[in-house]
């Protein structure tokens, strides 16, 4: 099984008859003449600056007429070397960088990173902190999926659902503004908890959003789901067999759209997901339409999770009390000697986890987002490997695009929903 995908791609390589233009290029013969204008295979360079590639993804597509014969994705146009940077940051200093990984759902990255470091220093945070994290992580999922479904529909040609989805997404950004003070690059979590407690007003605002959201989502769905153009352009497009999806290490909505019910929130529950009641939507078809439906149903499930969290969220501290590992509150730093010393030590030398390794994965909106952290006992990580779901999912792009039409490529990219900030790190 393993070799088939690449074998086929390679076989295709040797199968392709050398066209006149290729022969001319190889021999540097400039006097080539074409009698038939359809006589050659065309290589199309899509991106990195292309609106439908959702960022700086570059695709080299070889075309026979309108059919895609082969596709090679090229990455690295947004590579900022975060894994290298992490090695010279203290654990706290890296939190703002996590916003810039999956910039469509920054809160989910904040939560994943904080959990990874807490596992390394063996720290348990209070119940209220856990609930706050679930709330912001689910808001991030809604935020990301709204853009994914809106952009997919817009790539097909429907502008209105995109605008309506963005309108809802804007409300979430406003909520972030109330909860943490920033709309886009949130950096809200801290090691041991969150930056500040959520107020009753922000919880009330979240509740208003959640109550209205179901109806607004239904409005968008009414526009899309019985639209003949949408269904015909998605159904059966971008099909990838279940075995190949598993083989290629896909996670998240792409895997659930081929009938595999894998969700880390259920399979290895973190935070308080084991106390919440939700289901994992799966579809067996493994095409663009199935991926759309998985995302939409996850939106509904996320709303349910949010409703439960808003009811269950307990009173109490939001951050663990362990002054040697966790940044103390500013008012205490200015008044207490002990806290001043801890603050100085944590800011200058870091939290110094014990020597060791740890891996923590969470279910982000794109799939399994994991941090493999190696500590050598000092304040900086020795190695920080980010397992970004978009990177792994993009690998499936080439087999999905094989033998599809050129107009389907944008639909397939939209259904994979890659974020290049995360894929390129």
């Amino acid at each position: 099984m393993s070799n088939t995908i690449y074998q086929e791609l390679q076989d295709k390589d040797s199968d392709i008859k050398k066209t006149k233009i290729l022969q001319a290029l190889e021999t540097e013969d400039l006097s080539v003449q074409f009698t038939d204008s359809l006589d050659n295979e065309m290589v199309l360079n899509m991106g990195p600056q292309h609106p439908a590639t959702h960022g700086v993804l570059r695709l080299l597509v070889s075309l026979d007429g309108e059919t895609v014969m082969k596709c090679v994705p090229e990455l690295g146009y947004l590579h900022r070397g975060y894994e290298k940077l992490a090695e010279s940051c203290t654990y706290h200093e890296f939190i703002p960088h996590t916003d810039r990984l999956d910039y469509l759902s920054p809160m989910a990255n904040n939560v994943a990173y904080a959990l990874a470091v807490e596992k390394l220093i063996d720290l348990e945070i209070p119940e209220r902190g856990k609930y706050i994290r679930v709330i912001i992580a689910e808001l991030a999922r809604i935020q990301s999926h709204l853009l994914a479904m809106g952009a997919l529909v817009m790539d097909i040609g429907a502008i209105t659902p995109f605008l309506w989805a963005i309108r809802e997404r804007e409300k979430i950004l406003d909520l972030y503004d109330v909860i943490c003070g920033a709309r886009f690059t949130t950096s809200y979590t801290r090691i041991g908890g969150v930056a500040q407690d959520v107020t009753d007003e922000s919880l009330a605002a979240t509740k208003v959003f959640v109550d209205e959201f179901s109806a607004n989502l239904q409005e968008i769905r009414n526009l899309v789901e019985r639209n003949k153009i949408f269904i015909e352009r998605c159904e059966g497009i971008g099909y990838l067999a279940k075995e190949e999806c598993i083989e290629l290490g896909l996670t998240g909505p792409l895997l659930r759209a081929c009938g595999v019910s894998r969700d880390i929130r259920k399979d290895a529950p973190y935070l308080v997901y084991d106390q919440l009641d939700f289901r994992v939507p799966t579809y067996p078809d493994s095409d663009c339409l199935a991926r759309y439906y998985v995302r939409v149903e996850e939106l509904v499930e996320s709303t349910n999770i949010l409703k439960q969290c808003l009811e269950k969220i307990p009173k109490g501290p939001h951050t663990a009390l362990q002054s040697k590992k966790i940044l103390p509150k500013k008012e205490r730093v200015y008044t207490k000697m002990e806290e001043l010393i801890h603050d100085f030590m944590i800011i200058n030398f870091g939290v110094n986890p014990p020597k060791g390794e740890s891996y923590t994965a969470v279910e982000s909106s794109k799939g399994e987002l994991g941090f493999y952290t190696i500590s050598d006992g000092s304040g900086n990580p020795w190695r920080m490997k980010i397992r970004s779901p978009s990177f792994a999912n993009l690998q499936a792009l080439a087999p999905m695009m094989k033998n599809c039409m050129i107009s389907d490529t944008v639909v397939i990219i939209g259904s994979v929903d890659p974020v290049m900030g995360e894929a390129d790190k």
Partner: protein
Amino acid sequence: MKPERLELLKSKLQNFTINYTEVNGTPALYITKENIIDVCKILKSDNDLKFDSLLDAISVDWFEKKDRFEMIYNLTSIDNNERIFLKIKLDSKAPAMQSLTQVWGSANWYEREAFDMMGIDFINHPDLRRMYMPEEFEYYPLRKDFPLMGIPDSIPLPNK
């Protein structure tokens, strides 16, 4: 992973010299690079183990004289909901190992990334090119001896 399942895994792999450790509660198997492919084939095809999904490959530079590099593979079994790590120690001078694309297709890009960032050579890899850096780049940025600020003129600019 439950203790009895780990025993089962050990009995299936008793023909190989494997050092068992753990990463925060998850089993981690130190495998010699000679029999990595055989072990992986058993892990994937055995009906009880069924580690069918390779999720990540992590390259580490320990910056020591002996066995400087290490590859860590993140394996999961979807049916059994289990996770293990495979660890392979590699030479300091010329780190090389057999590519796991022979067993799991997803290893392709993960190993390209490890090659690009850490300079580890994967034998029998179908498409070992740089993943992020430009093709003409000569260094391996995630190695510990590569400075954080980069090396001046390491990426040649086009002539005027």
